[in-house]
């Protein structure tokens, strides 16, 4: 219990003091996971929508792959992305390994199936008669999708929250493709792992608490958006 209290104390201290190293790590965490979430939304929402509305052979197979992807082990993703980006790998010439962009890619790969899976369920949950009604009022295919997204907006925000949660809490892949380099690719999760392995439990605890707080604040903002204008 002492460690927890000390960690809490140190976390408050680090926050109040605006420790430059901690501020830098926190901002990078937000930047990397935020960008990854954005990319996962751009990929996942259209994919989920297409799977919810489309009728094509092999649809069930793709849906099952997406659902499996929702529980993709980050270590496997890290390994795969690392192999791709490795200097001698197929995308090695881009020189992305051990850069924040590599972490963005890994986290986006982890979050995209989560976003796609939740979006798929969200769109499928809408009354199918709503499609008929909208088409019967003269909606084009694109307009239909936009209105369906509007109707499912609360669930889509839940998809964004789940995706962000998947990205920000991930450590294995970030470590493998980012390398946990001070001032370059160190984020809250990788720093926590490092401090724990060094036995600096109070600092690790502090970083962990900051991570929790960060995740909570971002989710709180999205929740506020999600629940506004709700009438019952």
């Amino acid at each position, binding site marked *: 219990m002492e460690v927890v209290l000390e960690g809490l104390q140190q976390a408050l201290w680090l926050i109040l003091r605006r420790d430059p190293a901690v501020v830098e790590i926190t901002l990078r965490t937000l930047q990397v996971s935020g960008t990854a979430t954005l990319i996962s939304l751009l990929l996942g929402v259209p994919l989920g929508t297409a799977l919810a509305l489309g009728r094509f052979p092999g649809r069930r197979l793709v849906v099952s792959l997406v659902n499996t992807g929702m529980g993709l082990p980050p270590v496997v993703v890290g390994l795969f992305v690392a192999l791709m980006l490795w200097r001698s790998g197929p995308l090695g010439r881009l020189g992305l390994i051990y850069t924040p962009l590599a972490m963005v890619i890994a986290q986006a790969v982890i979050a995209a199936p989560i976003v796609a899976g939740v979006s798929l369920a969200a769109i499928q949950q809408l009354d199918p008669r*709503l499609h008929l*009604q909208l088409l019967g009022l003269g909606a084009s295919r694109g307009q239909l999708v936009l209105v369906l997204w509007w109707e499912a907006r609360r669930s889509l925000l839940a998809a964004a929250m789940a995706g962000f949660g998947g990205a920000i809490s991930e450590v294995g892949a970030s470590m493998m493709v980012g390398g946990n380099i001070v001032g370059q690719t160190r984020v809250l999760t990788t720093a926590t792992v490092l401090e724990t392995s060094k036995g600096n439990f109070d600092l690790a605890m502090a970083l962990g608490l900051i991570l929790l707080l960060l995740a909570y604040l971002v989710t709180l903002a999205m929740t506020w958006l999600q629940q506004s204008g709700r009438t*019952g």
Partner: protein
Amino acid sequence: MSKSVLSLRDVRVEYGGRSVLEVPALDVCSGEVLAVIGPNGAGKSTLLQVMAGLRSPGAGVLRFRGQTVRPGDLGYRRRIALVLQDPMLLDASVLTNVTLGLRFRRWPRRKAVGRAMGWLERLGVAHLAHRSARTLSGGEAQRVSLARALVLEPELLLLDEPFSALDAPTRAALLDDLQGLLRETRTTTVFVTHDQDEALRLGDRIAVLLGGRLRQLDVPERVFAAPADAEVAAFVGMETILTGRVVAVENGMALVQVGSQRVEVPVTAGMRPAGPEPVPPLQEGSEVLLGIRPEDVTLAPGETPLLPSSARNRFRGRVTRVVPQGRLYHVTVACGFPLVAVVTPRSVRELALREGREVVVAFKATAVHVIRR
């Protein structure tokens, strides 16, 4: 007949290898309200979806003003409007919902809002414009749904049982208003319902759909008075439908001139149960349709004197037709107008009912089903 707006030829829809809709020929004419009636599962909604271009028929053609409509045709869909049984409003303000179709058609917002307000006004729900659609009652929501379709001023309005989810007074009030609006705008309309009253109220013509087949298409009087076959007769139930006009009102009773006879009905007949604006009682000059169920008509031998009775309507007539139907007989009597009675085989024997037999027919004033036109 006026110009055909929408025509279906040899349309066939199959589902799971079973034919669910077969319409050899059906035309919707300019300015008319075509009521499609049939029991649940008769294929009414399927027919409407085909008409809306939302469901492709396996075979056959759909033509709109002479042009073939391909399923999903956006140009065609933007000339029509569809209203479903459930209002299917978006989780947004009433105004946003009503302007939706205009926004699909890329109307500027300001212009769309202006027109939407006009239609909300005409449907008596302008005060709800800024409310969230999720807070509306069933009747309000259906009015908004109608406004959302009518605001498009469609060349063809398709209504799929728009009233069946509403309670009786709400339904009656909305039916009145819709009847007025359709008459005023002369919007060509296809109105699907399982309710014969609604069909009679709104329909210029009635199409009867049973088991996915179009069984009869005619003016209401003939569909009810001369059903195409026994199944249609069994579905419509009411076999005598008379057009008349109220010629006198006295002691709470209205006298309706029908052919050469006068039929007595209560002045309160056809009033809605308890709407916000009750319909006034029948007045001299009111145009009405009278429906008389065959089981409400009694027959007596022609020698019977016309004694006073609680059956206010008694006429002398002559049997023109006796048709067995199941275990009963349907007897048509000419008594100034054709009237159908249903009787048991025993009555047929005892009264010696056959063509040419003189009879006295009677039915109570309260047994007459009055539909205001």
